């Protein structure tokens, strides 16, 4: 393994190097927020145009299932916080386990969401012109489900990427790659996973509760 704990020559010290990594990661996370911002703006616009359809759509979605999914993602976030803590304390085994637990919550989330998607496919609550759900025929109902699939779909892609990152980090942690002076990768992977959680925290009430 490359000794990443070492300070690169263009940084004054390890703390400056860490701060640079953090800032780079946050700049990336900001662009991720802006990627979703377009969809949030579209949601605000179409909700204001087709209020009735959006209320009926949200009422139709399974809020209980989404609450469980939220709890699962929050648990994953907590697991990643613990992984960061263990990596800083040079506990390779616990770091690896925490990261695997976080990846498992991601898989659980995808499975639960897959079940939801399956129900929508069966009942015809599909995006755009494929919408054929007889129970909600308010104007704009297909727009609600279009946004629902776009927003949760894009979010699920991020969950998949996160599961990949966390698994890779767990693999490296098992090989003893992280220690109290080298835990940057765990921290950055963790930040990404928290952002996935953060976006879901807003998707959950907007799509399922109101």
């Amino acid at each position, binding site marked *: 393994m490359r000794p990443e704990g070492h300070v690169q020559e263009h940084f004054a010290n390890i703390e400056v190097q860490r701060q640079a990594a953090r800032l780079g990661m946050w700049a990336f996370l900001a662009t991720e*927020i*802006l990627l979703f*911002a377009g969809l949030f703006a579209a949601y605000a616009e179409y909700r204001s145009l087709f209020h009735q359809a959006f209320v009926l759509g949200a009422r139709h979605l399974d809020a209980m299932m989404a609450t469980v999914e939220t709890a699962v993602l929050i648990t994953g*976030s907590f697991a990643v916080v613990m992984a960061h803590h263990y990596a800083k304390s040079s506990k390779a085994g616990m770091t690896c386990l925490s990261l695997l637990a976080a990846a498992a919550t991601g898989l659980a989330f995808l499975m639960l969401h897959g079940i939801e998607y399956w129900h929508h496919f069966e009942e015809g609550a599909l995006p755009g012109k494929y919408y054929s759900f007889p129970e909600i025929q308010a104007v704009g109902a297909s727009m609600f489900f279009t946004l629902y699939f776009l927003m949760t779909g894009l979010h699920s892609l991020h969950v998949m990427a996160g599961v990949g990152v966390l698994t890779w980090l767990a693999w490296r942690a098992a090989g003893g790659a992280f220690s109290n002076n080298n835990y940057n990768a765990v921290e950055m992977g963790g*930040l990404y996973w928290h952002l996935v959680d953060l976006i879901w*925290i*807003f998707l959950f009430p907007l799509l399922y509760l109101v």
Partner: protein
Amino acid sequence: MVDSTAHADHGELSPARSAMIYVGLLLLTVATYLFSRFNLGTWSVVIALAIAIGKASLVALFFMQLWYHRGSVRLALATAVVWLFLLAFFVVADVKSRYPLANPNANPLWQPPAAQGHSSQEPSTSGRP
């Protein structure tokens, strides 16, 4: 508020505090679900968004350590949030402030239907596409 003290214990989020925040996030999740079961009209939107902002703040400040890391990283998040609101605000303001550019009769492109049942001519009553 906590400027000097928090800066001194640089980036230390204790496992005990993270566990407390984790429990708090779960409680808020249950609370927002329970609130949504009541029909509170506009208030249900306000309450749901307030709880979401509370949860997001806990995640960003503690799990993502912004409470401990000051300066540039906070600016990155703040900028993204400001941009998000600018985009959403002006998109909605645009759509909500549109008005019909002309009444049907004043529309130079509009002609009265020649015969009943011929529906290809649709008098436009709204400026929306």
